């Protein structure tokens, strides 16, 4: 069986071996690998092949897809593979970024070359060892099923060859297999980690248990930016099992033997807060402010042709305001981290998307040099961007408490802490205008965007904010693929104390809804079928057209549906991939929307595991549908009004549509798959609602009360 273990049991290079990596944690003597050709591969004498994976597994399947990249070249036996999380080290940094990071739908794209070459180099060294043993030419040998096989038929296992292979020279150049000639790439492979996950033995951050470890919860500011002025811990401290109540920079930490005692005591804590100006914050006031800003010119993100002229000479103009709310990531595993300070070291156990940041923040908080901070990566119970926090907030809290009490401590956030404390996808307000000429051609497009920057004020702003424009504020809006002669897109970047962060698909979760919905409005205004209208504006955009046509044909666009149902289509290019979705919906008399079926077409170039892609599309659609149908964080008197899944509902089994995924066969460079499934679903659903009811949804989430008066089947829209 495949073992998924944290890196403390990582086998290190053998005693005589100099190549490879100096691991902070080497396993017991008997577990040492005989062959360690590079930072990613260990082969033991018992034929166990260990892959050291530099990306965090959060459900996107990297503990299967990245091993497939290595195995394709190495020719190992799939059943002998163990996967371990890499420690923090430069050799495990993102190949595009100077840090350890799992995000931006980049894992397969950014590791394809590095891991393929790692596998190929190891294979060549094993072949060299076998050739030397047999005194034959290396070209007469090949690798397969964990053995090196000579053309004569004789073979040696990887384990048998490992000690000798360790002495072979690392080849300077290796050639990769021709696409389609290996055993893995492009084929469905079951997840390596599924057995441990269904067994309940997979270890997440929240499952860390250390000798002498305590558990802490932290009473945190009721409004953003509030400061503790006083606290009374007498009652809380008297709860059995409570070990300490201490003030830390994040709030008041209640430390106990277990979570239940800590949480029980926390409820008895009396804290007085200076709420500062945060108490005046409200989303309704913010909406007014944003709406006013939308009437004024902002910082220009794209200006092409003569937008002013196009509108001045228009036969007709269309204008609409759109709005999307703050959203919580709501990962299933509540945020948590465990820290232990000992012997001049700081150990951190955490499910993180950004371990170098965890390391650096833990170092700054504990005063221990970053070289002495060891971050151990566990499974992530969902990430969606939240676990790549710019301030490493969950790790920071564990470091704060560990420092304060000088004992190993696990800090667990309650669901309420997560929901009320942020970070969030920003709240956005948009004003869109289109001009049509006398022949109903789209001649001009104006789009003003208002909202917070997620990169402002953090180091990555140097790369992500250009000329006053946070790229992620306008992505998908300033660079949409539609051929419109005159375009103006501008941005107002607002500031307020609500903490915002990347949320699965980042800017596209907002811009695809707005652009694809408004384009649909224009299509209807021009009297054209939304599919035909899009196709006309996508001339020459073969990959966009490819997914639009594939989704439309598989969905039966234009064919009759049962009464009371309609279809909507939307398209988005994001993270190097192209996705179109057709949603089939109905609306009941109470205004409740039911999504029956979603047909999804994706072009992500060359790909590793088609079932992973299907799973990520299914997951992206559920994530986007949760937001479209239910998701909304609102603030009143400085307080977040939602607290848990009862007030922040997400999609459940009884609302799940039938989803089918079609993958375009392509030889293009690989694109991402973790995020691109999210953006098109909200506009596809809302476009279907318009087609059915004639009611345009311009503000998410979809509110049944807005659709209540629109009985099914009486729509003014054309039914595709």
């Amino acid at each position, binding site marked *: 069986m495949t073992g998924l273990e944290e890196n403390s049991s990582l086998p290190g290079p053998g005693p005589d071996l100099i190549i490879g990596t100096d691991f902070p944690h080497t396993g017991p003597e008997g577990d040492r690998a005989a062959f360690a050709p590079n930072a990613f591969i260990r082969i033991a004498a018992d034929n166990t092949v260990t892959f050291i994976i530099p990306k965090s597994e*959060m*459900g*996107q399947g990297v503990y299967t897809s990245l091993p497939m990249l290595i195995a394709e070249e190495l020719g190992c036996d799939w059943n002998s593979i163990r996967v371990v999380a890499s420690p923090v080290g430069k050799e495990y940094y993102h190949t595009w970024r100077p840090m350890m990071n799992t995000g931006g739908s980049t894992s397969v794209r950014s590791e394809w070359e590095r891991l393929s070459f790692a596998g190929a180099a190891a294979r060549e060294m094993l072949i060299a060892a076998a050739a030397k043993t047999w005194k034959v030419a290396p070209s007469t040998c090949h690798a397969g099923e964990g053995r090196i096989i000579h053309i004569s038929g004789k073979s040696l296992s990887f384990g048998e060859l490992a000690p000798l292979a360790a002495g072979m020279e690392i080849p300077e150049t290796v050639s990769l297999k021709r696409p389609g000639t290996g055993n893995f790439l492009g084929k469905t492979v*079951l*997840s390596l*980690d*599924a*057995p*441990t*996950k*269904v*067994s*309940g033995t*997979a*270890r*997440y951050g*929240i499952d860390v*248990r250390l000798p002498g470890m305590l*558990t802490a919860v932290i009473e945190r500011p009721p409004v953003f930016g509030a400061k503790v002025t006083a606290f009374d811990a007498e009652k809380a401290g008297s709860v*059995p099992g409570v070990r300490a109540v201490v003030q830390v920079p994040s709030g008041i930490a209640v430390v106990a*033997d*277990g*979570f*239940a*005692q800590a*949480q*029980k005591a926390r409820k008895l804590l009396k804290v007085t807060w200076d709420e500062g100006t945060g108490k005046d914050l409200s989303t309704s006031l913010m909406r007014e402010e944003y709406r006013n800003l939308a009437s004024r010119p902002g910082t220009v993100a794209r200006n092409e042709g003569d937008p002013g002229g196009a509108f001045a000479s228009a036969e007709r103009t269309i204008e609409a305001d759109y709005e999307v709310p703050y959203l919580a990531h*709501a*990962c*299933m*595993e*509540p945020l948590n981290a465990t820290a232990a300070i000992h012997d001049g070291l700081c150990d951190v156990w955490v499910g993180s998307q950004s371990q170098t940041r965890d390391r650096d923040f833990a170092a700054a908080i504990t005063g221990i040099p970053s070289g002495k901070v060891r971050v151990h990566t566990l*499974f*992530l*119970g*969902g*990430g*969606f961007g939240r676990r790549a926090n710019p301030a490493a907030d969950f790790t920071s809290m564990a470091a704060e408490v560990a420092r304060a009490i000088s004992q190993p401590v696990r800090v*667990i956030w*309650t*669901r309420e802490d997560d929901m009320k404390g942020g970070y969030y996808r920003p709240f956005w307000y948009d004003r869109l205008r289109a001009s049509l000429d006398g022949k109903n051609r789209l001649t001009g497009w104006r789009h003003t965007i208002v909202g917070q920057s997620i990169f402002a004020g953090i180091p990555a702003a140097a790369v992500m904010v250009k000329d006053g424009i946070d790229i992620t504020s306008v992505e998908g809006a300033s660079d949409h693929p539609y051929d419109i002669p005159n375009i103006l897109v501008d941005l107002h970047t607002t500031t307020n104390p609500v903490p915002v962060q990347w949320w699965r698909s980042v800017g596209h979760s907002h811009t695809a809804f707005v652009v694809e919905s408004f384009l649909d409005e224009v299509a209807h205004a021009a009297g054209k079928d939304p599919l035909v209208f899009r196709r006309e504006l996508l001339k020459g955009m073969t990959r966009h057209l490819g997914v639009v046509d594939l989704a439309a044909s598989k969905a039966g666009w234009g064919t009759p549906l049962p009464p009371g149902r309609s279809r909507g289509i939307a398209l988005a290019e994001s993270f190097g991939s192209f996705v179109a979705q057709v949603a089939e919906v109905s609306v009941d008399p109470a205004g409740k929307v039911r999504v029956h079926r979603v047909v999804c077409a994706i072009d992500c170039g060359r790909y590793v595991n088609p*079932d992973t892609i299907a*799973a990520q599309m*299914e*997951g*992206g*659609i*559920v*994530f986007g549908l*949760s937001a479209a149908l239910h998701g909304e964080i609102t603030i009143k008197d400085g307080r977040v009004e939602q607290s*848990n*899944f*009862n007030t922040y509902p*997400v*999609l*459940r*089994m*009884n609302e*799940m549509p039938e*989803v089918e995924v079609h993958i375009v066969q392509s030889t293009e460079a690989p694109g991402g798959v973790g995020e691109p499934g999210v953006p098109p679903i909200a506009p596809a659903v809302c476009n279907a609602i318009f087609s059915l009811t004639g009611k345009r949804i311009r503000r998410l989430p979809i509110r049944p009360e807005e659709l209540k008066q629109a009985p099914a089947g009486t729509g003014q829209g054309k039914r595709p």
Partner: protein
Amino acid sequence: MITLQVNNQEYEVDVEPDTPLLWVLRDTLGLQGTKYGCGIGQCGACTVLIDGEAVKSCVRPVSLVAGKAITTIEGIPLDHPVKQAWITGNVPQCGYCQPGQVMAAVGLLQKIPRPGDEDIDKAMAGNICRCGTYQRIRRAIHAASAMKEGEKR
């Protein structure tokens, strides 16, 4: 001292009677397959079987389950049709909710051996999956149900 029957094993636990069963399982007994997700019985990550019934252990005081037969994810063998259907159906993504999903499915199939889609909607709507594996869960339940029927023949 409270006596608990977990996975056919007897445990004496020295905890406050109002402690939620979830945290006794996780923190006291070290059975960490059962997960914390919401603490208010809304998400189902903490689902266990009590006398065969799927129950949310985060809102069940330990004193109320003394002496009852408690089954956790660790008590379901890996070759159980539900676990096998989950693996061959490639169901888990992040996997965090899956122990609860598996327990809810086991509870459903004990009551209704051949559930229809509406039975599945009803029995599984209390278990949230943020990764969006619902379609695969539905198929896996049908597959496990077919496997169980096969065993009987």
